[in-house]
């Protein structure tokens, strides 16, 4: 029984001569509790798929199903209780004038929870931030801490699916390790389903069971993590991405 199912998704921006097809005929399924990766370079359409699922983009065609919801033009209110998103840039995803307490409190009250104080404390605890962070403003937090707050905000409505748009790209390597560990722990603890977008194959290999490789809006390959680790790509573009992930190789550059 798949949690998220996407069939023949097309997303475009603009119309007529200015139309740009960001996603072309994307099809994939994510079983319940699994972690699915979308990997590709900039302009490949990977983030656009997430935004289409969340309803942030309205010009799309195809079929998208999340659990019991068949997605149409608008998202029902309950949808956001079940599906949440963590954005890439921790510096842009928190309102500069709202404290952590306000961010979490507002989210909780919008979803109709009553015991807001306790929930805020529990959320901060779940993401590894102590109560001392509760009343800080974003400019008093480091990148990793901000991202933890963004994760706490995504967890607040108790969703079952979380979409992660390059959650660690803007973070230092050591902070990335902490956040990835946190995400893995949370997934196990709350039985979450993840769809994670990244340009970093190593991150995706670490976090995801299956990965879709995207190029220019199309999914060129669906790869299991076993194949990725064994370096068994089927598509030449996947091979190219894999090769580039290992640092600089002078001979590889010659052939590029």
């Amino acid at each position: 029984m798949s949690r998220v199912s996407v069939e023949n998704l097309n997303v475009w921006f603009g119309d007529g001569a200015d139309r740009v097809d960001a996603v072309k005929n994307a099809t994939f399924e994510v079983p319940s509790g699994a972690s699915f990766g979308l990997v590709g370079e900039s302009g490949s359409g990977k983030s656009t798929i997430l935004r289409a699922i969340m309803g942030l983009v309205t010009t799309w065609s195809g079929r998208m199903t999340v659990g019991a919801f068949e997605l149409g033009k608008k998202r029902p209110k309950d949808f956001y209780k079940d599906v949440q998103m963590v954005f890439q840039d921790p510096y842009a995803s928190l309102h500069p004038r709202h404290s952590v307490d306000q961010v979490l409190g507002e989210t909780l009250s919008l979803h109709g929870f009553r015991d807001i104080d306790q929930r805020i404390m529990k959320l901060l605890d779940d993401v590894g931030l102590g109560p001392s962070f509760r009343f800080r403003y974003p400019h008093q937090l480091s990148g990793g801490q901000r991202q933890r707050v963004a994760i706490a905000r995504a967890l607040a409505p108790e969703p079952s699916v979380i979409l992660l748009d390059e959650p660690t790209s803007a973070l230092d390597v050591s902070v990335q390790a902490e956040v990835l560990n946190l995400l893995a722990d949370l997934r196990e603890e709350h039985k979450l389903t993840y769809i994670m977008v990244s340009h970093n194959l190593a991150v995706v290999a670490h976090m995801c069971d299956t990965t879709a490789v995207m190029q220019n809006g199309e999914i060129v390959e669906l790869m299991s993590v076993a194949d990725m680790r064994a370096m068994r790509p089927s598509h030449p573009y996947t091979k190219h991405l894999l090769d580039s992930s290992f640092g600089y190789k002078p001979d590889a550059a010659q052939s590029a």
Partner: protein
Amino acid sequence: MSETLLDVENLRVTFPTRQGEFQAVRGVSFTLGRERLGIVGESGSGKSMTGRAILRLIRPPGRVEADRMEFRGEDLLAKSERDMQKIRGQKISMVMQDPKFSLNPVMKIGEQIMEIYRFHTGAGRSAARRKAVEMLEAVQIRDPERVMRAYPHEMSGGMGQRIMIAMMLVTEPEILIADEPTSALDVSVQTQVLSIIDRLVRERGMGLIFISHDLNLVASFCDRVLIMYAGRIVEVCDAGKLHEATHPYTRGLLGSLPRIDAPQPRLEVLKRDPAWAQAPSVSGRT
């Protein structure tokens, strides 16, 4: 090892803040010959500040102090601003991270490259033009004439960075400082840009300082690596021997990276030891 191009000893960069003085760089020492030196660190380690300090790009109230900071025997700290302008872009050049922010958006690309060349060499327009086209070809731009007439926003990230490199190398400097030159680029474009830097640096016998947060990239590209933490150098090693590094910070950085070929259930989390920030800086001098 060939002659020493850059000799830095006990470099300190300080900024006054409301809470007292903040030292971004605390006692960094290294020498640079005709080699590739990598400086690796996370944000706040002081690596970018080190690069900027060498070119005296740090504005007051920030202060740059050092026991010694010499370029080919000339004291960089003693130079006036006018003399530094003759060094910047001509003897020592810098390529930064995002060409979107380092190229002038309202000037044609050709004009920008020519301007730099003419400023430093006093050449005429046609000579500068020829040189600019030559440089664009050297960075593997297929249609240099079209690019000369284009504006920066019409270029992709990778092309923009190659144009940046062309601009910075047109005066044939001795040292290139590259501050995260490929961090804003896609992975496949990175390889191309790096190979261009590789070739040009080798052909011209330049010294290269490659600043990055990507340890593996630097290790695969450079000859020697300095690892910085909290404004100090905590370890120096030859690039090939990075995996034999001994300092716990370096080992921690290496261990916290996820690896495609080596699955780990949990990534190693770096435990920052305050002693690292207190210990004296390791010298990167040869």
